């Protein structure tokens, strides 16, 4: 795989006012899982989408390729290479999936079909999108496995998923996702199921992909450590909304939304025996019964009367830095 030169200000993909409604199977209620989220992906940069479970981060990621359940309804725009993916035909999308935009899922142990060899599953996108066959196909397979750091790739190609460890499988999933040199790679909690050491080296691998091949990387995660390690930009989600977004340093050094601030301070940060951790009171809200005004207001220690009446739209608080809070101000 050859490094490519690219322009860091080139927009790879743009999501505009993305909203997703899912149907909850328990009671058939409509859940506004994602609510008016916008963001831009740049080549060679990594966007972290962070939040707690149920905040809509995975749904956002899945909706970029329209890989949602059939009952889901998506609104907004996803602009990619001059077209709106939400308006594209299913056939057009298939040509884009795995070729220009590809994905990595959370659990590598179930991401590969247990009945087919690694080689077979790696060959599929290469055949379909790149038209590779025979020796060229094989050479590319070996090259890809080597690129993700798998020793003895020739043997691995003939093996089945159950013969490999989770860390190795996730590398193979990475190789499959990278097989056609995509523009955008969406990684949905790619290291949550891995051991700490496997986690760190996998993140380094993804980071290297982004920088070397001009990939726009989306990293969905709940772990601020992961964000700090690989991301250039962050989008913090709470109850289906992007409460804050901006460059990673600005967000970590001067968070503007009280939720972001609470998230950053409430994690044990490696300081030995710190006495008490600041906490966020209460529980995340039920998405089918969101409070009026700002969704975070009921848990917010700085909430004012106004917060429970109306929600702030995205407020400019810095260069490319936005926050949905009445009290957020530019530095």
């Amino acid at each position: 795989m050859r490094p490519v030169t690219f322009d860091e200000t080139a927009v790879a993909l743009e999501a505009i006012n993305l909203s997703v409604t899912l149907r909850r199977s328990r009671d058939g209620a409509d859940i506004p899982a994602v609510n008016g989220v916008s963001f831009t992906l740049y080549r060679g940069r990594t966007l972290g989408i962070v939040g707690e479970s149920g905040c809509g981060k995975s749904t956002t990621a899945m909706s970029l390729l329209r890989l949602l359940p059939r009952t889901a309804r998506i609104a907004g725009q996803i602009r990619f290479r001059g077209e709106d993916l939400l308006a594209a035909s299913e056939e057009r999308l298939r040509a884009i999936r795995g070729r220009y935009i590809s994905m990595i899922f959370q659990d590598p142990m179930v991401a590969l079909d247990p009945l087919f060899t690694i080689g077979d599953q790696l060959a599929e996108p290469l055949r379909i999108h790149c038209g590779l066959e025979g020796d060229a196909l094989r050479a590319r397979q070996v090259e890809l496995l080597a690129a993700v750091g798998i020793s003895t790739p020739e043997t691995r190609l003939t093996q089945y998923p159950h013969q490999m460890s989770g860390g190795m499988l996730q590398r193979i999933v990475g190789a499959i996702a990278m097989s056609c040199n995509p523009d955008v790679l969406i990684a949905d909690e790619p290291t949550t199921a891995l051991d700490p050491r496997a986690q760190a080296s996998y993140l380094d691998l993804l980071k290297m992909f982004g920088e070397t091949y001009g990939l726009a990387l989306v990293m969905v995660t709940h772990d601020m450590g992961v964000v700090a390690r690989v991301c250039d930009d962050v989008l913090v989600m709470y109850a289906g909304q992007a409460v804050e977004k901006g460059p990673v340093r600005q967000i970590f050094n001067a968070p503007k939304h009280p939720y972001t601030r609470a998230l950053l301070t409430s994690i044990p940060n490696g300081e030995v025996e710190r006495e008490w951790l600041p906490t966020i009171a209460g529980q995340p809200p039920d998405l089918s019964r969101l409070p009026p005004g700002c969704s975070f207001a009921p848990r917010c220690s700085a909430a004012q009367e106004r917060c429970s009446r109306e929600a702030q739209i995205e407020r400019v608080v810095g260069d490319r830095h936005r926050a949905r809070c009445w009290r957020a101000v530019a530095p």
Partner: protein
Amino acid sequence: MSSTYPTPPSPEAIRVSGSRPRLPWFALALLAPVLVFGIFGPLLFLHDPTAINLMTPQKPPVWLAGGEWAYPLGTDQLGRDLLSRLMEGARVSLTIAAVGVLLAAMIGITAGMAAGYFGGFVDTIISQIVDIKMSIPATLLIILLGAVIGGGLVTIVVSVIFLFWADYARIIRAEALSLRERGYVLLAKVANAGHGRILRRHILPNLFGTCIVLVTLQVGRAILIEAGISFIGLGVQPPATAWGMMVFEGRSYLSTAWWLPTFSGLAITITVLGTSLFGDWLRDRLDTRASAL
């Protein structure tokens, strides 16, 4: 695995599934007449089901030429009222099915729970017996049994137990095996709970749904077995009657009195269909893993 991050069910994990009806109306509609006749049969008889009337043999149902309201579904070769006989058959079939299935359930659930919970040697033995049972054609066992103890009610009930206990054992074993590894069972052991308490308070309550579903689904199959046994002449003996026997007897009059085998077979089909639809509904409602049936 202590290092994985189990995600609790979240809106992101929503799966496509149709909405479930509140009550299985169709299944209940199918079962209602069977249950009413089965329970109140003797009060509703138009005729004594065993009364032979040689003046009225092979009368067709009322909507055909020659039919009359006194015999709504016609009569058999001996002039007995078909409807009354079907009601009587319902009683016999339902009783046998219920008794057989319940006894089989008791044996099977005990065996399955023992195998799944205790594992080891107990499990090896029970699983081996279940395996053997599964690979022997059921009808052959019934024939062998019939040859040894002769026909009759006992044969049917014993056959039902014999055939069904292994199903319970297999499914309950698998379920108990996975329940045994749950955190709460380990914690109960840490809390000094004995096997009795763990089985009673932790395992059994969580098996309950599966058991109910299994019993419901098996009642239908037991009726089919009963019919089959009666059909090969090992079931209840005349003058008592059962649905399978009625199909068998009616078979000889196929060309002259088609209604005889048709209606008795229909009664079996409706009942079995009703119970299995009801069982399917229960299974979806209780969300158990008894899908192996």
